[in-house]
């Protein structure tokens, strides 16, 4: 017993330093160094100048986003003035970054620098590929944390039916109070910059690769592609690319490929490098906090059960947006049989808000398939045909 006493005394003061138990003191997996440049004050919208800005940066992992073919075509090519008006008012940048998961966020210091500690690996929902080789991309987003929640809240597009608001926040919102009062109704976060805004612009993106990059993996060629730039290293890295034109992107999309980047603009760096983000007007970068489309990212069709807001741009359109519309016949496709004149679908832009949106009304069909064998709705009968329906009523092509 006597020999145990010195050990007991020693252990009371000196044996317990290293055991941490359930202390959740996670050291960062990596640190992302950010430099924000520009004058925020000059970019702040009217109605918010009295607020104290809380500028932060956040890591936002990108979603798998399948562009709305209507938007991709009519946003890029001047084929139909009414359709172009709908696309300009209701379509996000179809080659833009679409957010899926907001990760770590830190405040920007007075000198414009910030270091984001990544504590967690991105979860499988934001990675593309298989367990042995999968990849995810993130954009570093600069935002004014107006509601002081300490994180970035993603926005959403308003509904097409009158009175269905989008949100939260962003944009100047509808006016309240005295005429000329442009105080935002919903106090949401304003976005002022992003390292990865669109594939049609030069970008710096955070890449995370598990396993080795497989250049032949078809999925990699469709997920924020950097054709011609080579793959990233395993783990975290900072990739850069110069971007491609929307027209090249559209043509490549029609054939299921990715447009090549200028190799001189490609870059691969470690996270020791600094990601520089210039501040820009929130209206020009707001799309990066707007999730794209429905849960599947594809076009969702809606039954004409309620009259839309006719104040917004609208157009009668084909149901199927074939590559024939842009003069590309895919292998085995005969564009002479494509009926581009049948216009049984109503495309209408969502009311102006934080996020753009377009709704496709269809007299007969399903939410995800206009030519489904068993339609979820059918308004083609005279008894059910809405009196306000402005488009073709014939069978869908």
């Amino acid at each position, binding site marked *: 017993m006597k020999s*145990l006493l010195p050990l007991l005394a020693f252990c009371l003061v000196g044996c317990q330093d290293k*055991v941490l138990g359930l202390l959740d003191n996670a050291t960062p*997996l990596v640190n992302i160094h950010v430099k924000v440049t520009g004058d925020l004050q000059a970019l702040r919208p009217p109605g918010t100048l009295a607020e104290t800005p809380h500028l932060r940066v956040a890591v936002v992992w990108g979603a798998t986003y399948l562009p709305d073919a209507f938007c991709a075509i009519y946003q890029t090519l001047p084929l139909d003035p009414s359709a172009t008006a709908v696309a300009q008012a209701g379509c996000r940048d179809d080659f833009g970054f679409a957010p899926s998961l907001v990760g770590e966020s830190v405040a920007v210091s007075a000198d414009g620098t910030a270091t984001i500690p990544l504590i967690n690996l991105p979860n499988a929902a934001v990675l593309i590929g298989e367990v042995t080789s999968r990849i995810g991309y993130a954009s570093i987003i600069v935002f004014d944390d107006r509601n002081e929640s300490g994180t970035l809240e993603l926005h959403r597009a308003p509904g097409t039916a009158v009175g269905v608001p989008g949100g939260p926040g962003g944009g100047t919102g509808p006016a309240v109070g005295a005429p000329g009062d442009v105080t935002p109704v919903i106090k949401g976060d304003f976005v002022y910059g992003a390292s990865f805004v669109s594939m049609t612009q030069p970008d710096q993106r955070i890449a995370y690769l598990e396993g080795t990059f497989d250049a032949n993996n078809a999925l990699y060629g469709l997920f924020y592609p950097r054709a011609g730039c080579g793959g990233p290293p395993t783990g975290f890295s900072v990739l850069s690319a110069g971007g491609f034109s929307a027209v090249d992107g559209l043509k490549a999309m029609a054939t299921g490929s990715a447009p090549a980047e200028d190799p001189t603009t490609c870059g691969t760096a470690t996270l020791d490098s600094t990601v520089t983000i210039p501040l820009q007007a929130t209206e020009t970068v707001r799309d990066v906090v707007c999730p794209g489309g429905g849960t599947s990212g594809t076009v969702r069709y809606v039954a004409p059960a309620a009259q839309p807001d006719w104040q917004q741009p609208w157009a009668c359109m084909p149901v199927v947006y074939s590559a024939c519309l842009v003069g590309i016949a895919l292998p085995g496709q005969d564009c002479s049989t494509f009926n581009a004149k049948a216009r049984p679908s109503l495309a209408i832009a969502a009311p102006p808000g934080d996020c753009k949106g377009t709704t496709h009304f269809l007299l007969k069909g399903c939410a995800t398939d206009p030519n489904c064998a068993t339609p979820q709705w059918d308004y083609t009968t005279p008894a059910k045909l809405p009196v306000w329906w402005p488009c073709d009523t014939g069978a869908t092509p």
Partner: protein
Amino acid sequence: MLTGLPAALATGMTAGVSAGILHAGTFTWGARASYSQATEYTTTWAVTHNEVRLRAVGALQGRLGRGTVGLRLGAGVTALYETRVRAQAARLGDAAGSLDTSAWSALPGGELEGFIALPIVGPFGLGLSAGPSLHVFQGAVVPGWLAQLTAVWWP
């Protein structure tokens, strides 16, 4: 067999094996040793504690029918080996190893157990004991409990 609250984890249950000797007599003494393990999780770590409890014990015991009942006070050191594995870090490949940590520690501790032992076949029988425990971890007294089911031999 031994089960109880881990010495230095705020939750969970440690389980393992134990052995000990106890002299005959009303007021008597002996020694016990045990090994047990517990694994619990935080949002970023999987924490495993391997505990070796070394105890000097004093006991007050008496006969009750064919069995023996008593009260046993143990005091000593709990040697603790901790491994912390970063959640999901294996996905990082070779870089994951540097994130994991391990550490030794020794904690003063003790238990006060009530026990009962009953001979079943000749000098062999079963014993059951349970009671509160205390450890000193990072300067604070950590209360807990302990329960043991043992094979007993009366030589």
